[in-house]
């Protein structure tokens, strides 16, 4: 992955991209466009939240409002662009946060076993006994609080599946001769974990960060769809969907556009995740 993160001359990025399967190419393009929308949102749609109560709801294709307006007379296009930030930043934080927790708990649990492993295992069983979306709705909803409370709750709720996955990945490498050899050499456990275990499970972790982003995107928009986590009137795709539900007859674009955005973003993250899984999955672990 480092090759993608390192700043490269443009032609090489393009060449690299062109060699990928079509769906993966498209997914990377979608991700790039979304990143631009997150970063440049305030410039692209500075007046997204400006209401025009007098105008009310106009359908898509109206002058000045290519995607129409919502019930408050807000421009759907501007609102959707502005909503990218709240739709994507949270899921990214959730994915990275829960994977960090997963590595922190899962790697030692899988490598050391024993009491630590059974404690971590019981904790995961407990959290996974309920649907994460339901738990998130209940906990975030009952606690109240805003966007970041929901993000924090989802980090905790997503971490058990990451923990389990990391744990079983570590467990699978635990008895590999190259790890046993380091134990015979007498290297300390933290050193073995950092130098030998983590690099070999990094591809699995990276793959799952992308898949987690997709799930977190769906979960976060579900929460805001139900009115949990986002302040009323904020620019957010889930919120737009639930507000736009009543406008199906007057301006369907008000709910269809953010709905499609959620699906497209989640599909893109899934496609990249599946592609990474394919690339790394079989055979030997490729060094990151």
């Amino acid at each position: 992955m480092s090759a993608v993160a390192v700043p490269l001359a443009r032609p090489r990025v393009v060449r690299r991209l062109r060699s990928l399967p079509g769906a993966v190419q498209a997914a990377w393009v979608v991700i790039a466009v979304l990143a631009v929308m997150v970063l440049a949102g305030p410039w692209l749609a500075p007046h997204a939240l400006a209401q025009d109560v007098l105008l009310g709801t106009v359908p898509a294709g109206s002058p000045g409002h290519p995607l129409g307006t919502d019930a408050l007379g807000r421009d759907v296009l501007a609102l959707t662009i502005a909503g990218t930030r709240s739709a994507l930043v949270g899921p990214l934080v959730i994915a990275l946060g829960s994977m960090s927790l997963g590595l922190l708990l899962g790697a030692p649990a899988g490598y050391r076993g024993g009491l630590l492993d059974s404690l971590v295992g019981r904790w995961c069983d407990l959290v996974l006994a309920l649907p994460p979306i339901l738990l998130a709705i209940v906990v975030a909803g009952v606690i109240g609080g805003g966007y970041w409370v929901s993000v924090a709750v989802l980090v905790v709720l997503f971490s058990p599946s990451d923990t389990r996955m990391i744990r079983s990945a570590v467990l699978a490498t635990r008895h590999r001769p190259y790890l046993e050899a380091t134990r015979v050499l007498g290297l300390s456990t933290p050193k073995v974990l950092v130098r030998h275990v983590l690099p070999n499970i990094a591809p699995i972790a990276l793959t799952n960060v992308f898949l987690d982003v997709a799930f977190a995107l769906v979960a976060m928009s579900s929460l805001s769809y139900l009115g949990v986590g986002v302040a009323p009137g904020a620019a957010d795709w889930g919120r737009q969907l639930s507000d736009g539900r009543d406008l199906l007859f007057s301006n369907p674009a008000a709910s269809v556009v953010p709905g499609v955005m959620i699906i497209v973003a989640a599909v893109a993250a899934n496609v990249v995740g599946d592609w990474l899984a394919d690339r790394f999955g079989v055979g030997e672990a490729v060094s990151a």
Partner: protein
Amino acid sequence: MSTVLSARDLQVRSGAGPIVTGVDLDLHAGTTLAVVGESGSGKSMVAKALSGLLPRGVHATGQVELAGAPLDLAGGERTWAPVRGRQIALLLQDPFTSLSPVHRCGPQVAAALPGTPDRAQRRGAVAAALAEVGLDPDVARRYPFELSGGMRQRVAIAAALAAGPQVLLADEPTTALDVTTQRAILDLIGELRTSRGMAVVLITHDLELARERADDLVVLYAGRVLETGPARDVMSRPAHPYTKALHEANPPLEHKVAALAVIEGNVPRPAQVAGRCVFADRCPKVQDVCREGEPALVDLGAGRGSACLFAAQELAAAPTAPELAPPVLGTDRAAPVVQITGLSKTYAGATTRALDDVNLLVGAGECVGVVGESGSGKTTLARCLVGLERADGGQIRFLGPLTPTGDPAGRPAHRLVQIVFQDPYSALDPALSIGATLAEALAVGGRPRTDVPELLDLVGLPATYARRRPHALSGGERQRVAIARALAPGPSLLVCDESVSALDVSVQAQVLNLLHELRARLGLSLVFISHDMAVVRQMADHVYVMLRGRVVEDGPTDQVLSRPAHDYTRALMASVPGRATQEQ
């Protein structure tokens, strides 16, 4: 002797290039043809091609005649459906995975029986099929996981033969089994071949086994036939340098040689050596002309053929007698470096002991062999020695030049005992370069990173390998790096747990010679664990025989292997392939 199947110019290729080229085979009823080759020779692909089971993207061509009728190798399921099982059956290597784990054995055998609607009749037929392979009728009600490896392979044979094929393709049918079981399974296949008048194709990497079990053999290398002929003739007077070299690289069971003959380098991929003699790069007698074109298989008469331009000279040359090793001197069992007394270990949840009151002693500079089959406890012993497992009882004392630094429990001070494992493919961290792996091991011994080239040189690898990753190395090279890593902290005792058994014969000889050399050079003591009696004969000064966690016999290698005192040792020796014929 009627011909059941004949293949002319059999080719197997994938998108990446040819895998097998120009193979001719003739199978006769009631006889065995061995296809011998090292890994990468394409021998398994021949079997897959002849049963229409090539993997996706791999295709076969060639003129094949089965029982007088042409058989289209590229044909679809419609071609193969009436052939598989009824005319040609394939027996796979691993009996542990070749039966469905969640179905009972009876139905799995019955599934291939020609339609018998009546239940009682079916049960009778299954019982008869099981009886033919020497199993009780009640095995039908058992699940595969309830049976031993040998029993599973018998069930698999019964299943393969249920529909009465004329040809049995046996792909390394005993490689996954213990030696004593191997012999019984090979005997069974031989008996069934005679009683049913089948043609058997025995695909194997083991020349000795081929000599013992086959009437004819075909030697395959990099997808090409290098030599064919009656098994005994080929083995006693090879007509191709490769066959000869392979034969000589095989460690003899009966005596110890000064050094094993080796074939330098590694088995190439067929595409790398197209258009010339495929063996040229590794051949000791190579001439320029060998690289100018691909030598055809020359008929040498008496059913023999060789694809060497100098086959006639080769055939005429007298077999080279190996130089025997001098009698073992200089091991000092009176001054042991390790003394194990009363070692016991039972794994959690196990009902039997993995180690049961094991006593073992390693003298200074000595190589101690530990032999036994799977489940004998030899690997547990190795793991206890290096501290990867903790014994329940008994003592491991490190003495003499090994002074464990302040561990009263007698655990080895890490840098004094090191280990080399079996599987070269998982021996090295795929994420680290060879140099990084070795530098880490050197650091344990307090040595600088700059010693890496020296360490590589010690195991016969060029210094440039430090920059490579494990996946760019061959199995033998990886095992050399694993040895270098073990030597880096300067151990006095090296434990080799089946360290050469996953390697091809030609590469195995290289690694065995290396270990020999290192031992002499560094004054190492060695614990050499193996299931292979011939390898132990070459390596060990003193040998321990283990059975179900106990040492049943020990003594100087020559004495134990030549005049075994315990029944089990005798059984082990009798099971080694080619033993009966090797004395000639």
